[in-house]
């Protein structure tokens, strides 16, 4: 087996790695943003529930949640390994993304909300048109960090037999006995995925920056 074959075998798992990430990250963002809005503007009791959610899902290792969802819960609803893995990672990520969005929402000064109300906007309008646009910009740097973490965590779905980059590296490493090369190839592919993603998000951050803001 020559090196080209070797690398292309591992690299063909990239589709699955990217697929898992593209499900986990946006679903985590959607859930996380909704929960963060509820956390910050939903009152004391809601905030407590959100805090519990965040503590539980940040406290469970993603791979444990993965096993629970795939082997226990999805017995009746027959979820595939790919979906069980992607959604578990999405749920875990949602807890982290909720904290990111919450932090960003709280960083926008409360005076702005009051000022917006004073000029006649409703509470919902003020949150949507004044606070949220600023918060989104503030959230991008920590969010690109989370994106990198989800890309790397996507390797966990190998435990359910999804042949993504890591599992492919293990298989080819075992059969060829060149495991160092196999894992190095996997590392290089992961590095470029994470590198490209963070670069793209930095560009986005610059593009969205408000010129007058220091």
């Amino acid at each position, binding site marked *: *087996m020559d090196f080209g074959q070797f690398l292309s075998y591992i690299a063909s798992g990239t589709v699955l790695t990217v697929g898992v990430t593209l499900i986990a990250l946006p679903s985590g963002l959607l859930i996380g943003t909704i929960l963060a809005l509820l956390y910050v503007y939903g009152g004391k009791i809601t905030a407590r529930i959100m805090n519990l959610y965040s503590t539980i899902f940040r406290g469970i290792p993603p791979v444990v949640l993965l096993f629970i969802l795939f*082997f226990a819960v999805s017995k009746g609803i027959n979820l595939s390994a790919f979906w069980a893995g992607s959604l578990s990672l999405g749920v875990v990520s949602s807890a982290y993304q909720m904290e990111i969005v919450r932090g960003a929402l709280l960083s926008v000064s409360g005076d702005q909300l009051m000022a917006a109300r004073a000029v006649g906007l409703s509470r919902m309008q003020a949150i949507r048109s004044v606070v949220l646009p600023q918060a989104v910009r503030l959230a991008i740097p920590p969010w690109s960090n989370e994106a990198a973490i989800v890309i790397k965590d996507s390797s966990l779905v190998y435990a359910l037999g999804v042949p993504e980059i890591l599992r492919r590296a293990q298989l080819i490493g075992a*059969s060829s006995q060149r495991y160092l090369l196999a894992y190095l190839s996997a590392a290089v592919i992961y590095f470029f995925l994470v590198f490209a993603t963070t670069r793209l998000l930095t560009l986005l951050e610059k593009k969205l920056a408000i010129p007058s803001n220091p």
Partner: protein
Amino acid sequence: MKKYLLLTVALILVGALLVGCASESTSVLDKIQKAEKVLVGTSADYPPYEYLDDAGNKTGFDIDLMAEIAKRMGVELEWVDMPFDSLVAAVAGGKLDMSISCFNYDEERDKTVDFSEAYYTTEDAFVVTSAFTGTVSAPEDVANYKVGVQSGTVQDGWLTDNLVTSGLLPEANLSRYERVDQAALDLANGRIEILMGDYVPIQALVAQNPDLQVVYRGVLSTGPINIVLPDGDVELKAEVDRIIKELQAEGFIDELALKYFSE
């Protein structure tokens, strides 16, 4: 913090309950015949039993054997690759129809799944590098050294039950690896002194690394290897056992062993 811990435990219990509720009454054999397809799990990182060939296709003793079993069941064979540790849970959870991955009978595993008749008998081996200066005249002697083993295997069970529990081998001196080749890497690096494993894959390792040598060989933990089947599925077990006996009688399995296990 205690509250959250309890909640997590409760969540897991609910999950376990769901598993209990969803027990099926029909045989998996009916499902296989209706779909004309059998879904078999393996962990294709364990040469020569199951591994990938140069083209990236699954090959090995278990792979060829299962292909023949599926052929005789008159159904198509669909492989699902999974890490070894996940396979039993996947059969128990109904994600796979059966699993073949050099499984030995094990009481713990028997609680959640069933085992077919044995299709082959394996041995254990201890392997060291040329830097090793100690002696291993009896299997218990390995307790004096740093030992490595693949986690979750019957060898792991043997070391834990016979040497660790009795206090002969300090827990800190036993390293458990997810895969045998990782253990072999640490053996070469000197992090462990002795590696315990199944004789056939150990022999394959030795063939690839001239620095390694087997210092002990015998039947300790292992022995017969079986196919893992869903728990309590008498019909499926009867069918698989029938084919295994047929293949043994025809000499098919001996031929496979010669093909994959010969030096």
